[in-house]
C-alpha cells in the first residue's frame, strides 16, 4: 500500500485538519472536527446537510459552501457518521427555515440520518430528507429505491443548493431535490480497487485487462466484468443503460457529469465525454451543462462514471447559478 499518511487511524482527522487549515470558509461545531459546517450561515435560508463515509473527496463535505450545502457530517473511511454528529450539524445550520438532508442510499447512512431526524424533532427543528439513488447498475427499473447513490448526487446538491439560495421554503427545496433525483441517472465502470487505509490491501481483485461495469464506489458488485474495450464502445454500452431509463425526446436538455473515480487521468475523462456528446447529438439532445473531473471518488480507484440530469427550465436555471465552495467553484452563467 502506498499512501501519503501517518497513522491510518488518523487518516480522516488529519485530512480534516488540512482542509480547515486551507479553507477559512468552513469550520466545525460541537468541538468535533467531523461536524463540518459553513463558517457563515445565512439567516433565514433553508439549511442543507449531507454526510457519509470519508474516502470520496470532494464528496461529501466538498459541496459545503456558498450556493450549495451548509454542513456535512463526516464518517470514517466508508463508514457513516453518527446520528449525534448529524444532529450537531443540523442544530448549527438551522436558520429558522428548517433543514434538508441529502445523502446517498446506504443502510448505515439512512439509519443514522433517520435517527438524527428524530433527535432534531426533539429540538423542534423541522427536517426533511431526500436520498440519492442514481446508480442504474445497482437495481432494476421499478426497484429504484434499492439503488445506490453515487456521483449523480452532485446534481441534487447543485439544484437544492441553488434553490435554497434563491430563498425557497423547505418544502420547495425538497420538491426541487426530489425532481433532480427523479431525473438523474448514473452508470460507472471500475478498472482497479481502492485501499482502505486501516485495511491496507485492495478491497477486491480485478484482472490486468478487466473492467467491471456498474461497480459501486465501495467496490460493490456491478453488472458485468469483462475485458476492457476501447472507449467509444464502452461509453456506448454504458449510455445504453441510461437511455433505456428516461424518456429523452428530441430537443430535450441535459446536464452531464463525467466523473473520475480517483486515479483516472482527466485526458481519458474527456475522451469519454467526447463520445457521450456524440451520442447526445445523434439523438438531438442538447447538452447544456457539462462537468468533467473528479466529483465523487473512491480514493485511488481507477474508473469513471457518467451521470445525466434530464433538465427542465427550473433545473436549467439552478444548474447555471453561482456556487463557491472550497472544492467546487462555478461562475453564474
Amino acid at each position, binding site marked *: 500500500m502506498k499512501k501519503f499518511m501517518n497513522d491510518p487511524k488518523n487518516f480522516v482527522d488529519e485530512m480534516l485538519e488540512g482542509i480547515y487549515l486551507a479553507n477559512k470558509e468552513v469550520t466545525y461545531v460541537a468541538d468535533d472536527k467531523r461536524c463540518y459546517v459553513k463558517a457563515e450561515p445565512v439567516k433565514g435560508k433553508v439549511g442543507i446537510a449531507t454526510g457519509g463515509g470519508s474516502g470520496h473527496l470532494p464528496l461529501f463535505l466538498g459541496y459545503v459552501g456558498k450556493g450549495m450545502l451548509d454542513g456535512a457530517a463526516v*464518517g470514517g473511511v*466508508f*463508514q*457513516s*457518521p*453518527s*446520528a*449525534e*454528529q448529524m444532529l450537531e450539524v443540523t442544530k448549527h445550520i438551522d436558520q429558522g427555515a428548517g433543514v434538508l438532508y441529502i445523502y446517498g442510499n446506504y*443502510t*448505515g447512512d439512512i*439509519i*443514522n440520518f*433517520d*435517527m438524527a431526524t428524530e433527535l432534531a424533532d426533539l429540538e423542534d427543528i423541522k427536517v426533511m430528507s431526500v436520498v440519492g439513488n442514481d446508480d442504474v447498475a*445497482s437495481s432494476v427499473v421499478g426497484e429504484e429505491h*434499492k439503488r445506490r447513490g453515487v456521483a449523480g448526487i452532485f446534481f441534487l446538491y447543485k439544484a437544492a443548493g441553488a434553490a435554497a439560495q434563491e430563498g425557497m421554503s423547505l418544502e420547495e427545496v425538497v420538491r426541487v431535490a426530489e425532481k433532480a433525483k427523479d431525473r438523474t441517472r448514473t452508470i460507472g465502470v471500475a478498472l482497479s480497487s481502492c485501499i482502505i487505509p486501516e*485495511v491496507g490491501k485492495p478491497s477486491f481483485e480485478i484482472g490486468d485487462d478487466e473492467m467491471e461495469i456498474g461497480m*459501486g464506489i*465501495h467496490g*460493490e*458488485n456491478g453488472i458485468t466484468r469483462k475485458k476492457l474495450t476501447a472507449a467509444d464502445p464502452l461509453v456506448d454500452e454504458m449510455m445504453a443503460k441510461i437511455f433505456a431509463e428516461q424518456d429523452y425526446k428530441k430537443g430535450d436538455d441535459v446536464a452531464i457529469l463525467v466523473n473520475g473515480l480517483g486515479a483516472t487521468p482527466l485526458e481519458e475523462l474527456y475522451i469519454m465525454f467526447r463520445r457521450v456528446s456524440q451520442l447526445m447529438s445523434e439523438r438531438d439532445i442538447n447538452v447544456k451543462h457539462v462537468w468533467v473531473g473528479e466529483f465523487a471518488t473512491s480514493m485511488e480507484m481507477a474508473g469513471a462514471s457518467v451521470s445525466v440530469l434530464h433538465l427542465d427550465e427550473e433545473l436549467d436555471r439552478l444548474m447555471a447559478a453561482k456556487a463557491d465552495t472550497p472544492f467546487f467553484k462555478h461562475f453564474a452563467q
Partner: protein
Amino acid sequence: MDTINTGNIAALFEAFHTTFRDKRDELIALDAKVGDSDLGITMNSAFEAASKTVSDMDGEPLGKQFKMAGAAMAKAAPSTMGTLTATGFMRGGKAVDDADAIGTKEMMAFWRAYADGIAERGKAKLGDKTVLDVLEPIAQSLEQSADQHAPLVDAVADAARAGQAALVATKDMVAQHGKAAAFADKSKGLQDAGGTVAFLLIETLARFVKG
C-alpha cells in the same frame, strides 16, 4: 436472579462487553464473507462505550441506564448494526422506564420494543435475512413466557433457545439489505451476521440471569 435491578446493569453490560470482546474476530470473519468486515470491531466498541457509560450510574433508574447505554453506542459505532443496536437499547429502555426491576413481564416489554424499534428504523421485513429474523422469535418467546407467568430465568433461557433456532434458520434466507444485498446469492448458506449479534445478546443475558 429473580429480577434484574438497577444495581445489576453495570455488571450486565460488563458481561455483554466480555462477550463481544471474545467474539470480535468471529464476527469480523462472518461480516467479511458478504460485508465489510467491521462488525466485530463496531460491536466491541459499542459495548465498550456502553459498559463505560453505565459503570457509574448505579442509583439511576433502570430505563435511563439502558437509554444512556444506547446513546453511547450510537456515538461510538455508527455502523448499521451499531446504530440498530443502539436504537434497540434506547427503545427497550423507554419500555421499562417506569419499572424498578426487570422480571419476565418487563423483559418481554424490553425485547418487544427492542425488536419493533429496529424494525421501524431498518425497514426490513421478516425473511430479509437481518437481525430482525432473530429478534422477532426472541420477543415472541418472551411474550409466551409472560403469558404463562414463567420465572425470568426460564423465560430468558427459552428466548435464547428460540434465538439460536432462528439464527440457524437465517442460513436459508437471501440478504435483501445492507452490504450483503450486493452479494445476495453468495449470502445463501451463511448465517446472518447481525442475527448472530442478537443471539449473542440474549445468550449472554440468559447466562447472566442464571448467575
